[in-house]
């Protein structure tokens, strides 16, 4: 309640009553004054109260953060590129396995049911099977993204080809 009084959010009628009590009561008046002074002084002396960052800490911090921060985006780019290369490799592998009939039964089922509703993928697989050509290393973008999604829907750790 006193907190409300001091930060001005107390209801005005109550506040008035308290004001008139404080005006007549010396201990309360002293309390209110010293409470306010405590708050005011804290603000005023902020610079003395705050811990100043020592110069050596400051320079170590700057060196560390700057060098680490600059390396970070580089690391992220490298990681993403690596992940992308692995994904392309996996997609090609899955397509090869599909053509060769070496998919695990669960993956084969997924590919089959996907091809039943996706003319693009069905056309792609039928095309390769019909022509009997080698599987291109990089399939068209749309096929790549569909196959990627298929792989992602496999439970973690599930291999897509027959052992």
């Amino acid at each position: 309640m006193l907190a409300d009084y001091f930060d001005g959010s107390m209801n005005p009628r109550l506040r008035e009553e308290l004001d008139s009590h404080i005006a007549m009561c010396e201990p309360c008046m002293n309390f209110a004054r010293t409470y306010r002074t405590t708050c005011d002084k804290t603000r005023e002396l902020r610079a003395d109260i705050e811990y100043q960052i020592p110069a050596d800490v400051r320079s170590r911090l700057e060196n560390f953060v700057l060098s680490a921060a600059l390396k970070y985006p580089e690391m992220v780019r490298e990681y993403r590129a690596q992940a992308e290369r692995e994904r392309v490799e996996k997609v090609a592998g899955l397509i090869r396995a599909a053509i060769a009939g070496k998919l695990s039964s669960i993956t084969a089922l997924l590919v089959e049911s996907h091809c039943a509703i996706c003319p693009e993928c069905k056309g792609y697989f039928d095309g390769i099977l019909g022509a009997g050509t080698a599987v291109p290393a990089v399939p068209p973008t749309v096929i790549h993204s569909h196959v990627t999604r298929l792989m992602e829907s496999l439970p973690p750790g599930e291999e897509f080809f027959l052992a």
Partner: protein
Amino acid sequence: MSAERWKDDEVLLDRLRKGSPDAVNELLRLFQGKIFNLAMSILKNESDAEEATQDVFMTVVRKADTFKGNSALYSWMYRICVNTCLMRLRGKRRNETVSIEEFMPVFTEEGMHASPMDDWSKEVERKALNEELGQMIRKYTDQLSEKYKVVFVLSDVEGLSNEETAQILGLTVPAVKSRLHRARLYLREQLSRYLLEGKAG
């Protein structure tokens, strides 16, 4: 706070996301003092505070792209700092802090202040006392448990609003108000003792 400030935050963050060294420098310039101070006031140990500050900046640089602009950048950074520091404190031996109850005002049955209540507010007007007083406030603040101290540092020292402090600490506004009030009562009482009794001693 102002729309301008939010825009500045956004610009700085955008440059951070692109990995601009200038942006990292700017971030350090703006916040390293504040973050170090907050870390110091929670951890009370320079080398811990240094490591925590380092962690905070690394987190901010790494997570710049996940920052949602629904709070100011400084309040996001304070939040990261508080979390980092509290995590460090956990598991460590708890710092010795005083019981705050002892410093709450006590009233007699007639509703009078039980202890003598002197007015020292004029006393501290003397400028010569300021440096000493600042040190005393810091010392007494350090004695508070984290629960009260973090609220006190954010609200009264750093000057954030109760709403901002509540958001940073994940507390309700009434909880912030009540902790802040208790911290102030404690400080007021300690300053009273220091100014009135300490004189003689």
